[in-house]
């Protein structure tokens, strides 16, 4: 199997991955960099558990061929807290509003929320629901998640 060497920025740090050319960004994050925050749920771009941010945009990392990451900037759930460990306002809001139950969708959900708030710091409920429409949660019924994102948007002001 052909290998490829891909250099990019991962959570602010320059990195290089030497992996099979058929690997996805998700597999590279989990199996090469051992960043297991992004999850594989469906593997076909429907559930959003694998969501990460590439050059400012939320993408399904399970469908993102690793050669396409060359030169880009990738942010994962592991990269959004401060270096001293203090949580990102969206993480805090999810904890305080019970936006997390089983937790499987949470990292993808928070990355979609972050991409949304980075582009639209003052979203209404519909904007939020559209922003996370590609992230399935089978526990919460979404209400606490939407409230968490609303609270994070307020906290950021």
């Amino acid at each position, binding site marked *: 199997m052909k290998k490829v060497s891909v250099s990019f920025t991962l959570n602010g740090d320059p990195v290089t991955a030497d992996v099979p*050319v058929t690997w996805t960004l998700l597999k590279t994050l989990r199996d090469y960099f051992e960043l297991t925050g992004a999850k594989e749920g469906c593997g076909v771009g429907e559930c959003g558990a694998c969501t990460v941010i590439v050059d400012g945009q939320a993408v399904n990392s399970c469908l993102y061929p690793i050669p396409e990451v060359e030169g880009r900037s990738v942010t994962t759930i592991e990269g959004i807290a401060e270096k001293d460990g203090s949580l990102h306002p969206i993480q805090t809001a999810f904890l305080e509003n019970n936006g997390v139950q089983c937790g499987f969708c949470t990292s993808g959900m928070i990355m979609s929320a972050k991409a949304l708030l980075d582009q639209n710091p003052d979203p209404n409920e519909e904007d939020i629901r559209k922003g996370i429409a590609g992230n399935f949660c089978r526990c919460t019924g979404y209400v606490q998640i939407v409230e968490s994102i609303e609270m994070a948007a307020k906290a950021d002001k």
Partner: protein
Amino acid sequence: MIDYDYRKPGNLEEVFSLLKEYGPHAALIAGGTDVMVKIRNTRKAPEVLISLRGLKELSYIRKNGDYHIGALATHRMLEQSDLVQRELTALYEGASRIGSVQVRNVATIAGNICNAAPSADTAGPLLALDAQVLLQGPEGERRVPITEFFTGTYKTVRKETEVVTEIRIPAEMERFGSAYWKQSRRKAMNLPIVGIAVSLRLDNATISDARIALTVAAPTPIRAYKAEEFLTGKPMDEAVLAEAGRIAASTDCCTLRDSLRGEAWYRAEIIEAYVPRMAKLAAERIN
């Protein structure tokens, strides 16, 4: 074990030479939201994937007389374009309802039509907006009306050596209003049970020109010509629109089928109900 090579040519000439070298053993990939899923689901891959994402010059939306949409314009670009939202509203509605933000951020308009699913959400709007598809190959460029682009389910006129480079919508569409309805069970992350796109022009209260397109109503996305002919020259009133809906839903226009997503009778009722509604909405949107 799935195995393939992945190439990232930097310009069209390199794409053509790779397509020539690998012929039927190559597949083009842009956003990957269809190609990567298909590889995973079928456990089969071509020998080589040729990525078009390096062709940055094909990522544009502009109006220069006609409307020009580069092949690599993503659904997100279409969704966030004021020009598309204002003047090609049906296309805005189709693009903004595909998949999720994550999918729309990478999935391209050319990918949507080249995959050629009967349910393609941009296909109905593009048919109603009289789009043309520009293809480039080693022998030069050709322009195909989108009405002739789809040749079957998941099949198009694109030759193995060609690349779709642009979708062009004629300038006269600025005088039309347009609307697209996607009938689906959920508001997001869903394929249409049936899709209805209408564009029209009015001369006072008379419909001077109309296009009606249907998706998941036949093996390919189609135009409902008989219903369009009926509308042309008629007044914009309830009885006329209702009859156009009945014609569009009939076997004069489509070949509806029962499938997992919906039954034929249901699709017919939705077409009948929504052709008039989309026509009215399109009329309100004439600039």
